[in-house]
């Protein structure tokens, strides 16, 4: 049996995210799947990719997947290490980082993100960690790739709290707000890829994973899903990609 036949949806999601970094000079990442995808990209696609963690480590070359953004290995392998004010003012805010990977508890159709609270702010059902670096990362970085699980709890009609502005209320919103970066360019889920429509900015299904139908995706989306005229089928992870990913996870 070939390795490609056995890739899980999560593995494919990570591989798809890593492919997104083939041409990038630099990527801003948090921990979890984004970090795994970026390290994988360095292993198989783009050995010169500069990994930027908000703890201040720029050009980190971790061998292991870090548990926290501040693990010692990140500082020890970085090209240089900066303070938090320098990170946000000199590197993030200025647009010197090409791509940012962000996650969120809720995503809406314009790729706005909630990582603050489920329910009412003053009387929350679930208190989430909060903004962290996300709002200004989404303002400043060249583009944003959102990575999230695909279900109706996450992809919602209306956010309980707008922590991070993606495309706001649609066309022209980012320009009106004076944001520099292009904003979200993709939402990568475990079912497929959604990209903002060039005219409406609304997240539109452009690719599905093998074996996933457009109906499956619509069923798991909390708004009436827009679908591109042609929906591509994502090429499953190659043996090289999958082997590298599994080897990385096993380190």
């Amino acid at each position: 049996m070939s390795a490609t036949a056995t890739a899980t949806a999560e593995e494919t999601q990570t591989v798809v995210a890593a492919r997104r970094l083939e041409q990038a000079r630099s990527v801003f990442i948090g921990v979890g799947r984004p970090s795994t995808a970026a390290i994988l990209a360095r292993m198989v696609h783009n050995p010169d990719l500069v990994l930027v963690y908000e703890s201040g480590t720029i050009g980190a070359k971790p061998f292991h997947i870090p548990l926290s953004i501040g693990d010692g290995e990140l500082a020890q392998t970085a090209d240089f290490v900066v303070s938090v004010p320098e990170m946000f003012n000199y590197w993030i805010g200025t647009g010197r980082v090409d791509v940012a990977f962000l996650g969120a508890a809720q995503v809406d159709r314009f790729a706005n993100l909630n990582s603050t609270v489920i329910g009412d702010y003053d009387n929350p059902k679930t208190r989430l960690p909060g903004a962290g670096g996300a709002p200004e990362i989404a303002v400043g970085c060249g583009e944003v790739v959102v990575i999230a699980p695909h279900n109706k709890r996450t992809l919602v009609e209306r956010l309980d709290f707008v922590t991070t502005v993606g495309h706001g209320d649609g066309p022209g919103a980012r320009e009106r707000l004076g944001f520099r970066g292009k904003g979200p360019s993709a939402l990568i889920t475990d079912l497929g890829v959604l990209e903002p429509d060039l005219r409406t900015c609304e997240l539109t299904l452009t690719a599905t994973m093998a074996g996933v139908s457009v109906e499956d995706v619509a069923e798991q989306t909390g708004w009436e899903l827009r679908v591109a005229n042609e929906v591509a089928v994502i090429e499953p992870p190659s043996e090289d990609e999958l082997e590298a990913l599994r080897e990385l996870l096993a380190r």
Partner: protein
Amino acid sequence: MAQILNLPEAIAELVHDGDSVALEGFTHLIPFAAGHELIRQRRAELELIRMTPDILYDQMVGVGAARKLVFSYGGNPGVGSLHRFRDAVEHGWPRAIELEEHSHAGMANRYAAGAADLPFGVLRGYRGNDLQKHTRVAFIKCPFTGEELAAVPALRPDVAVIHAQEADRAGNVQLWGIPGVQKEAVLAAKRSLVTVERIVDQLAPRAGAIVIPGWVIDAVVLAPGGSQPSYSLDVTERDNDFYKEWDVISRERDTFTAWIDQHVRAVAVAR
């Protein structure tokens, strides 16, 4: 010039009930030993300030030491929720807590403004999101270009507490690795306390290290291992397993309280 004190006397002298206190350290060099001494001395009604209130502030919030939390990310990094923080916010246990939350960029600029003794920091941010409705931010027009920018009020904590690798006998401090926002916190605060892994006769300058002179620090305390389960680069390692264990320990009120009693309150610190 910084006095070299022991931990109980430094906390007793510098931190008072009701103070605003910033125990800083961005995943690295988190001053756990000092925070635990605050719990042992039963400091109360504190305004706790910290960009990333992780396990240490979960413990301090869980024992009810804080009336207010000023922060930008309240999670257990790489693991998940801070259960004591959530219990305080969601259920008011052991007491209700006031929140003032920002983004990282906002907090970093608030500290930098405090360190510069300016009234506010300025950045491109907060526009269009819901944070601005719940926190202290204002929008101002640049007098030179007309661009609209976010202004955030300077942070001026009563006390900053940080941990570093080393100090000399005059209280000059050297730290390296991820520098976070500790230098800014010390310079922004009215009083400051630095715990260190070791005290040396003379600091050997290191490329890329941060030196904070003893004449802007009130007290230096020798506290080897004082950043564990966080770490001090080149001296101790981050105890990632403990960050995962904390998820279990802190999930229930009684297991949390038993842990604090055994591992914090019952610990005798050398005077």
